[in-house]
């Protein structure tokens, strides 16, 4: 029985850990498909987590916290958009700058507002996402061996935001491949000149994509500080923004693959928490530090193309200059 509990907790953890990765990677997907590289995802995630937790702590309301998180991430996206679309600045430099502003700013403002060494107060039950949603018939199906277990103990009982994040993957696929907006978005990331010639505004499309990405990162940030934990702690995004970016690269900028890469990274994360300090047969005890580094090492291996070749949208990273 003990063993099964470990499996359940690892798999539940996988689903939970993947949520911020999925939302953040989708944000990156929209931005990069439109031709704007967004390395500032990490900073936005952190800033949104902070904004969500602070607003929720002040107002005592989870929806207002969520709104604040989204607005904050959208504001960051707007700055990134202005620098990289309107001003044609270096997108990577702009994203890096936003990351620093978020890392420092959350601590400074958090300290000034709450005076708790850069943390926000613990959120009360009303101010966080405390309601786990059970899937229909979860209780009655629990008795069925294996499948029922999986359904009721692993798939059921998450926050609504979790289900929403997973639902966003097919929605994003549909938007990208079945709508006019999606067609234009993909086109502007491959050949902005052609889109411009067709009389469609490159600038407008890119802003839409980047700002929409801001909404998704905002949700991811709120999930970190208002669902997984009850409050913001200094540096709580801990590289998740970069991992999501790597997941996006490994997914080859395709929505369906994002699901699998994010689940993989989420699984590694959950596994490392459960296996810390435990000896593994044949291998022995793996140092904690190796576990922490594993997602990053794996990402490097993936990026090296040992598993597949990553082909980014052609125009991503280059500002569009109209008269050339």
């Amino acid at each position, binding site marked *: 029985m003990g063993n099964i509990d470990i499996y359940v907790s690892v798999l539940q953890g996988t689903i939970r850990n993947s949520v911020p990765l999925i939302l953040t990677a989708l944000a990156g997907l929209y931005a990069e498909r439109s031709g704007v590289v967004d390395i500032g995802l990490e900073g936005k995630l952190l800033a949104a987590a902070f904004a969500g937790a602070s607003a929720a702590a002040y107002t005592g309301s989870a929806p207002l916290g969520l709104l604040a998180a989204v607005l904050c991430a959208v504001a960051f996206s707007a700055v990134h958009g202005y620098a990289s679309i309107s001003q044609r600045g270096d997108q990577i430099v*702009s994203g890096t700058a936003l990351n*620093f502003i978020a890392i420092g700013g959350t*601590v400074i403002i958090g300290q000034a507002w709450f005076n708790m060494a850069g943390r926000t107060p613990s959120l009360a039950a009303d101010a966080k996402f405390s309601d786990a949603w059970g899937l229909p018939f979860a209780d009655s199906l629990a008795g069925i061996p294996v499948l029922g277990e999986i359904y009721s103990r692993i798939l059921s009982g998450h926050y609504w935001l979790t289900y929403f994040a997973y639902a966003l993957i097919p929605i994003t696929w549909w938007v990208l491949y079945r709508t006019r907006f999606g067609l234009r978005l993909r086109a502007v990331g491959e050949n902005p000149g052609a889109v411009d010639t067709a009389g469609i505004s490159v600038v407008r499309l890119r802003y839409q994509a980047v700002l929409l990405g801001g909404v998704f990162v905002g949700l991811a940030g709120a999930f970190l500080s208002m669902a997984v934990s009850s409050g913001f702690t200094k540096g709580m995004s801990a590289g998740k923004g970069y991992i999501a970016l790597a997941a996006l690269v490994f997914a080859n900028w395709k929505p369906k693959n994002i699901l699998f890469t994010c689940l993989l990274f989420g699984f590694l994360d959950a596994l490392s928490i459960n296996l810390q300090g435990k000896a593994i047969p044949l291998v022995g005890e793996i140092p904690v530090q190796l576990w922490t580094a594993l997602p990053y090492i794996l990402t490097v291996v993936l990026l090296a193309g040992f598993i597949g070749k990553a082909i980014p949208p052609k125009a991503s990273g280059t500002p569009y200059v109209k008269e050339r």
Partner: protein
Amino acid sequence: MSAPFAKLPNWAEYGLIPVVNLVVAFLISGLVVVFAGENPLKAAYLMVSGAFGSGEGIGYTLYYATNFIFAGLAVAVAFHAGLFNIGVEGQAYVGGIGVAVAALTFDATLPWYLIFVLAIIGSMVMGALWALIPAWLQAYRGSHIVITTIMFNYISYSLMLWMLNKVFKPLGSMAPQSRTFGPGGELPKLDWLLAIFGLDNGNSPFNLTFLLALLAAFLVWVLIWRSRLGYEIRTLGFSPGAARYAGIYEKRIIIVTMLISGGLAGLLAINSIMGDQHRIQQEFVSGAGFVGIAVALMGRSHPIGIVLASVLFGMLYQGGAEIAFDMPNISRDMIVVIQGLVILFAGALEHLFRPSIVAAFARMRSGSAASTVTTGA
């Protein structure tokens, strides 16, 4: 509308525009101070007086500046080849292994000047090795160097934590750090240098590494603007296509440039390990590698600009510590915000104020020499 890229006089290009960008970054930082409920003018006063008000303050400022010179040079060398090395932090961290091994092995037998040489070699080799893998991946596997160097920063934290716990930690000790070095592992302070100006270094860790940093800045200038390799590096950064047609072997330049960049980053480790702490411990780089990005952008990737920008950031670090002491609402993280704003305005938004400055110049010219200069130029 070709105005944004019109030619400006050199002093405006390399002096005025960076200063304008910097001033805006500071004004916005001032707003953050107001937001935190403190007086920005008082903060600015505390910062400048804390950094330059005493010999000890100046010593600290230059001690921090030493780190930033190395980090800035490392970022700048890669910049010249069109590579954005965000991994300086990790390269410097791993570079510390080379310094620590040299000092721990020989501190009882060799004098400091020999260990200093070994530490220079060791730190450069370790830093360069840590940069080699991302460089190789970029050159041969096409993985983006920005992402891989970021990943390597995170991997370096884990690696160093493990090294400090399992390799460097003496038996029976709890803290993840090495033993204190003997006299051979300590670099001499530069008291005499400050004494020339009638200043007392006090307790600050301002040490010999500063001179090594200045030497490195000079050598980087020689490398980039006075050597064949530097020419190839700049050509690659300016136009990879042109470099290829000119017969420059792109992959080799990427690898060599990143090895130099990582080596410079590694040198940073000497300053705090042999110059201040006299042991290797956790987080001794403490963000200096990232400051290098801001320093390189502000200094326009030129060694002189980098040294000046490093002193400025040294002032922010030292003065920031003073502010944190007097203003409870402001911690040293304020520097990270300022750093971010400087990167934003000096890097990503560097053209923001250029059109108006160019226009102002055009107006001045047409006003003073309307008869000789054709209008509309």
